[in-house]
């Protein structure tokens, strides 16, 4: 989809857009971010993954200069977030967790009013809004009251709004939380289109599928710390292996004979393995009425393996 952006093409180059070093954020003694270091390269989709309270939204606030770090270093486009807020904010598009659209205005007016905060000329804004409405498929709804839109459409409006200033960097905080699967896939498609257009994208999520599908690099967060980072598929293979056997009735299954990484979690046992054939044969030998499934390992497994917790609460 040609959005008329001055795109860079589908190329992840090595230019670092965001860099955080030993970043800390305290709220009255509570460590929301505890000494994290990370980077995001131009043109990639970077995902920050973690349960509620992991520090994802706090991190986004620091990047968008709507909150200030307690210590460490954070640069966006090479600019210091403590000093160059206006310049940084001018080049970012934010899709916040809450749909904070303006309920007093229609779809079109929401976009027009927002363009003024960036100092965009009205004639330029009008042209851009047409393109954006087309991109998010809301052209027919331009004069609707925002409060009458469905959840998915509201989200699309906020995505369109985040693109009004033709940002280099787009930040999506839980872009699909609370949406039905169809709307979710639509939004994934849009995110992929934006990446093709050369945008750098950050997203936070607690949906594994979303992170695995979209992200070039993920940072797994828990309690204000980054536990691990890298390409999602590579991380899974590195830490837990290609496949996972999930066992449901594990009362007297003797697992000592089975190789692989075993994780006891709630009423289940996970065995992570690179050799599912052997694992299965042994499992069936030990006990033939065992109930289990075998599937490719995913990020949820990795998260449970690393933290002992589930991502979704």
């Amino acid at each position, binding site marked *: 989809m040609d959005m008329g952006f001055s795109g860079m093409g589908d190329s992840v180059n090595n230019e670092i857009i965001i860099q955080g070093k030993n970043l800390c954020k305290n709220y009255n003694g509570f460590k929301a971010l505890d000494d994290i270091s990370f980077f995001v390269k131009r043109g990639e989709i970077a995902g920050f993954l973690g349960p509620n309270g992991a520090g994802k939204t706090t991190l986004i606030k620091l990047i968008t200069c709507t*909150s200030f770090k307690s210590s460490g270093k954070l640069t966006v486009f090479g600019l210091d977030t403590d000093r160059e807020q*206006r310049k940084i904010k001018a080049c970012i598009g934010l899709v*916040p967790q809450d749909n904070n659209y303006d309920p*007093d205005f229609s779809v079109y007016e929401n976009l027009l009013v927002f363009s003024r905060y960036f100092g965009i000329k009205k004639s330029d804004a009008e042209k851009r809004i047409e393109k954006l409405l087309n991109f998010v498929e809301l052209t027919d709804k331009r004069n609707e009251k925002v409060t009458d839109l469905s959840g998915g459409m509201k989200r699309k409006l906020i995505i369109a709004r985040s693109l009004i200033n033709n940002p280099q960097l787009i930040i999506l905080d839980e872009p699909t939380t609370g949406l039905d699967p169809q709307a979710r896939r639509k939004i994934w498609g849009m995110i992929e289109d934006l990446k093709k257009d050369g945008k750098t994208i950050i997203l936070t999520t607690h949906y594994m599928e979303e992170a695995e599908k979209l992200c070039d690099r993920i940072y797994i967060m828990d309690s204000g710390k980054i536990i691990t980072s890298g390409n999602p598929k590579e991380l899974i293979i590195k830490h837990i292996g290609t496949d996972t056997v999930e066992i449901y009735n594990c009362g007297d299954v003797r697992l000592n004979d089975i190789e692989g990484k075993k994780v006891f979690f709630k009423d289940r046992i996970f065995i992570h393995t690179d050799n599912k054939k052997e694992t299965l044969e042994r499992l069936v030998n030990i006990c033939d009425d065992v109930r289990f499934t075998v599937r490719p390992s995913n990020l949820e497994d990795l998260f449970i393996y690393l933290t002992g917790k589930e991502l979704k609460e």
Partner: protein
Amino acid sequence: MILSSGWIPVWKRNKDVFKKLFWVNFFLPLLEPIFYLITFGFGLGSFVKEIEGMPYKKFILPAIVAMATLSSSFFYTTYSSFVKMIFQKTFDAIIATPVSIEEVVVGEIMWGATRGFISGIMVLILFIVLGLTPPFHLTFYIPIISILAFTFSSLGMLFTSIVSTIESFNYPIFLYYTPMIFFSGTFFPLTNFPDVVVHSSKIIFPLTFSMISLRGLEKSFDPKLLIEGILPIIHGIVYFFLSINLMKKKLIK
């Protein structure tokens, strides 16, 4: 930071909403001053012959204009701004753009002031049309009403930066706003009260100065009276900067 122009789009946003809801925002509140005029000007006024050498309906006129002004400003930067800040998260959306929190607050206060000014002047024009006051009185009403609108817009924002729930506005409203409406020389002159009461009223309620000034000017044009009408700006400036600072602390954590 404050002198930058980022507050203008915030002001414009509020103006656009106002225009959309013109009937609700504008004509309905215009009824209240008319009720005041009927009740106090014509109703009570026919029993009270003269106060301070003027008929009561003339005496009450500046008070009705002033109250229309300050209520329009004050209730905008209290309830409306609070709803936008807490429930609609409009401020959060704006501060993620190049507009700063200071500019959002200034935009809100300036719109509150504009709104109060429009309300006050509309009431005055209504009174002019009804032949209750001569048109040239606009000349001194305009500066005094502007200052009053700015002062009460800033004061409303100050309370908004302090309260944590929307119900807490009852504190400033019943402990400050309502007493002010009655004890600032609005419905009756303060002259029969002891000096200490008069002076306290002047210190606590900026409206007292506006009333002395407007009422005096209604009687005869004396430039000295204009100075009293300008005094509330001292309150206004203090509330303005204080509210910007407190709002910043509240929203940027």
